């Protein structure tokens, strides 16, 4: 019998979290390389619509795991419910995105099953008959290839941006959806979560942005933020910043990119006056293209930039805004 890879996609409030496509791409790629079967699962209370959405992709089967105990989300409910399903199913690999929600329950789930999670991976490699998962260590200064030293199921979570979600393969025909009723016994769930809320009034989900213009210390003064905003507007993108800018209150905290802020993977990340401290890099290195403008030619941001401009952003950015506007008006 063929081995199975199970991708558990994430839903929040009845909506598929887009980062799940990246995990599905990882699953499709692994399935092709290993000759294993790819299946997906989604857990919730009324998830048939999401299961249907996933069924359009190249997967053998979707398991729609249904239980009132999955809603609202609690680590106890998800751990108990998924344990039941995964124990019965016995896949070789269980893949999930490394989201705050997954981080909250997957170590509990794996421990409850006597297994381990290789967390926050950025890729995998096959070496002989060994499957290695690559994760960052020491804030990204090193990478480590990590193997499992236990029986399957093997749990792996992938960092946001590790795979290209837009490369998810569609299926030739819709995959079958199998509805599974999961029984989460009373008393399992001790946490009582309240409604999810946004603190900042204009809180923005930068993970969904395709173009991000991001500012760092090189912007020098609060009044110059406006210049970066104009560029973001011209490009039709979102404005973001490194931690020092948000700590200074020049932009709200929900615009912060990096290990303590958001992790993003836009099509374009335009870094203005950002030196590229590792805490920032971990939040944006998944970007498809990085354009960096910085006057310090040794700034580490240039290490990961596709396009580099060594120069004064106060000269380059106004010219750039003008050029973008010119291009758009002629288009």
């Amino acid at each position, binding site marked *: 019998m063929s081995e199975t890879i199970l991708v558990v996609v994430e839903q929040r409030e009845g909506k598929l979290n887009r980062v799940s496509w990246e995990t599905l791409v990882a699953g499709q790629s692994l399935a092709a390389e290993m000759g294993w079967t790819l299946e997906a699962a989604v857990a919730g209370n009324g998830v048939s619509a999401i299961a249907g959405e996933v069924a359009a992709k190249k997967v053998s089967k979707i398991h729609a795991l249904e239980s009132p105990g999955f809603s609202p989300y609690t680590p106890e409910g998800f751990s108990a419910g998924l344990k039941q399903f995964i124990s019965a199913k016995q896949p070789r690999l269980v893949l999930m995105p490394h989201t705050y929600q997954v981080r909250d329950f997957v170590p509990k789930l794996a421990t409850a099953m006597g297994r381990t999670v290789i967390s926050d991976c950025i890729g995998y490699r096959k070496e002989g008959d060994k499957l290695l998962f690559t994760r960052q260590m020491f804030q990204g200064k090193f990478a480590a290839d990590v193997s499992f030293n236990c029986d399957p199921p093997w749990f792996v979570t992938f960092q946001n941006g590790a795979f290209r979600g837009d490369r998810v393969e569609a299926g030739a025909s819709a995959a079958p959806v199998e509805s599974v009723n999961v029984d989460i016994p009373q008393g399992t769930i001790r946490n009582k979560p309240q409604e999810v809320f946004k603190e900042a009034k204009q809180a923005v989900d930068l993970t969904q942005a395709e173009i991000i213009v991001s500012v760092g210390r090189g912007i020098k003064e609060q009044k110059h933020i406006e210049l970066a905003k104009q560029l973001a507007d011209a490009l039709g993108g979102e404005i973001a910043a490194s931690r020092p800018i948000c700590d200074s209150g020049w932009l709200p905290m929900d615009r912060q990119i990096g290990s303590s802020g958001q992790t993003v993977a836009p099509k374009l990340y335009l870094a203005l006056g950002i030196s590229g401290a590792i805490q920032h890099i971990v939040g944006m290195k998944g970007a498809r293209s990085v354009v960096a403008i910085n006057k310090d030619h040794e700034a580490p941001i240039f*290490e990961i930039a596709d396009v580099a401009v060594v120069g004064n952003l106060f000269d380059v950015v106004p010219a750039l805004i003008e050029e973008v506007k010119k291009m758009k008006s002629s288009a």
Partner: protein
Amino acid sequence: MKILVCMKQVPPKDAPLKLNEAGTWIREDVSYEVNEPDAFALEEALRQKEKHSGEVVVITAGPARAQQVLREALAKGADRAIHLEDAAFVGLDAFNTAGAFAAAIKDEQFDLIFTGLQSDDCGFAQTGVILAELLGWPHATIIMQIEKTEGGIKVKRELESGYFQFVEMPLPAVLTIQSGINKLRYATLIGIKQAKNKPLRKVALAELGPAITANSQKIERMYVPQKTKKTEYLEGSSAEIAKKLVEKLKDEIRVL
């Protein structure tokens, strides 16, 4: 409230690090400091104790050098410390570290256990959650606020993208604490003096017995990540650079 704070000693964020000869870990001849989120976890425990009275106990696992983290915590106001002292603790996976902590505190009765949300060296983000599962306690992660309620606690979880959520839960419980939950204090001179007389229990690896098993995940090798990107430098006047860049955004990066 009796609170245990799990702490870890890690190299500073900006420390230049080198790999060991086997390429499986760093060379340990570097300086160390407390893992940043753990410092916030300690501060939060001290604040909770000041509000509700009780005791703050700190625990770490690592070689002799790791005692520094405990000494600093005692100087800041922790009441006593537990040091699982062995160089072997450095290489343990999150499951074994959590198992070691659980075994070391089996005769104690804590109301709360705090950990930082993740460590700056391994970044597993798992030890606290595994510890909760091993103890059979509820947990909540990435916590930005803690209030005592009649039946337990109410905590504020940070979610992604600017979202938050309050969760009520019974005690005992494990919480993983986010950096920035509070403002860190400095140790006072008196605190540093008093720390010398505070109890510090050492636990040897052998005392933990079957709690430590073979790691279920193994670092095969560590290496400096290869630079995969080819960087193209744009030169010329600002106007020329702007023109070239817009062409790229249009034709290669395709966002215009």
